């Protein structure tokens, strides 16, 4: 009786996801190993031996890496400050961080087109104060993508870190200081290790998010492709579905490897879980 009830509750969702997500994904992965009915890894060889493709992978990794590092450098101090505030101020700042996160990525990327464009706000300001002679070419470069993605993902790391940091007992810091630790040592020995889980989860979210983001590179990256725009281009523009499936598989593998690796690091740093 109880088992039957469980089936009724869970089966519709499981069937739906199996049919419309699990099977399409598994079949997409499987399809990369078959061409004209026989087993092959030619798609992967073709992908990995073309310097153009490797450059795209390299750009993607580089942009994601820089985005993650800058998000940590900007997000960590800001989160620490927010976590120490009273509930009212903390609430307001958290709301201000969550708002951009809920705002359409098209809107957010577009706002950087206004700022970074050739006649954009940044260039016209720099020109008018005479800091530069001719407009900087930022829009449609990896730098523009990085700026857009830092803007996209910074709130994510802030809210994750604040969530962890606000649970750190302030007495721990006082105890460390009363035992003779300097402010810096106390921060390094108490706050940093206790924030580590948040920092790692936040970094996974930012890194994986940057690796797979589509809208921001599509709007700000111009011809400079990343792996997600390359997948779209192969599937829709070039109609090369075999290559698109190969890229899709590579993206899944990279995503799971990154998540797995960071989870492993998290476990090592925090064996108690």
């Amino acid at each position: 009786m109880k088992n039957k009830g469980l089936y009724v509750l869970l089966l519709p969702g499981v069937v739906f996801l199996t049919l419309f997500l699990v099977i399409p994904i598994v079949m997409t992965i499987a399809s990369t190993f078959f061409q004209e009915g026989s087993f092959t890894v030619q798609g992967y060889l073709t992908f990995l031996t073309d310097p153009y493709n490797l450059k795209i992978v390299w750009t993607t990794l580089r942009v994601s890496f820089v985005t993650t590092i800058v998000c940590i450098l900007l997000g960590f101090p800001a989160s620490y400050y927010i976590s120490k505030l009273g509930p009212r101020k903390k609430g307001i700042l958290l709301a201000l961080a969550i708002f951009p996160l809920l705002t359409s990525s098209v809107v957010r990327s577009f706002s950087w087109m206004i700022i970074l464009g050739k006649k954009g706000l940044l260039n016209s300001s720099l020109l008018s104060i005479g800091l530069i002679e001719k407009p900087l070419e930022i829009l449609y470069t990896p730098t523009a993508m990085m700026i857009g993605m830092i803007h996209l993902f910074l709130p994510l790391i802030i809210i994750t870190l604040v969530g962890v940091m606000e649970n750190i007992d302030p007495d721990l810091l006082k105890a460390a200081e009363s035992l003779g630790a300097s402010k810096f040592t106390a921060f390094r020995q108490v706050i940093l290790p206790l924030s580590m889980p948040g920092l790692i989860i936040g970094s996974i979210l930012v890194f994986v998010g940057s690796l797979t983001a589509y809208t921001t590179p599509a709007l700000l990256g111009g011809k400079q492709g990343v792996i997600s725009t390359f997948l779209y281009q192969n599937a829709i523009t070039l109609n090369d579905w075999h290559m698109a499936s190969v890229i899709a598989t590579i993206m899944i593998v990279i995503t799971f490897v990154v998540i797995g690796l960071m989870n492993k690091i998290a476990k090592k740093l925090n064996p108690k879980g």
Partner: protein
Amino acid sequence: MQEKNYGLALFTLLVFVFLLGPLIIISFTSFEPGTVLRFPPEGFSWRWYENIFEVKMFMKTFGTSMFVSLAGNLLALLLGVPAAYALSRFQFKGKGALNAIFISPVLIPGIVMGFAMLKYVIITYNLPIYAGLLIGHTVIMLPFIIRVVASSLSNFDFAIEEAALSLGAGRIETFFKVVLPNIRSGIIAAILIAFLESFNNVDISVFMTGPGVSTLPIQMLTYVENNFDPTIAALSVLLMIITAIFMFVIERLMGLSYFTKR
């Protein structure tokens, strides 16, 4: 000590200027009376707001987006609420695996899901694009519904349900009369969060376009590729107002702790 705190406060202020500045700039440019996007605008006018309503494709794709997000939301609720209830209420074999399946749409890159769905849902299963769009959006909303509903169920005392059952109420009656009213605000918050997730989605929708079918964000992307007038800025302001209202309601319903918890 004070000095260091001032430094940190200033740093935090600059971080927020970076986060919110672009959104403020885009809002100003939407009132531009001329035809070129610029900051500061040359004056004040509503003309680009009026223009939104004159671009037929914006109206049409707004309708599609609304339908897909609302109908998909309903579907995701019908599939997700029972699942969230079962996963929170009962212990059983294979629970971990089921949890993983229900959370998987968050782990798989959106652009990969979109492509795989185009390949199988549209081509192999031979469903119309509109149906594919609806299915895709249901898939991405499901984990949000399940997560938010499960989190409000975790605060629910199932002893109350046991009491109702032992007093002779049926299982289904108990769910609707006892459990559901207790997690109502969680469910409304889940609907709003899932709606925003779907309404703003690009990764799935970008593959699910066809003759006469497209969503608002995709139409905006197409528009930006060909035009650089302030219409998108005006539309952005309207979308931000909707987002702000949604966020306010979510905050009232369950606080913002949902977002900071991982």
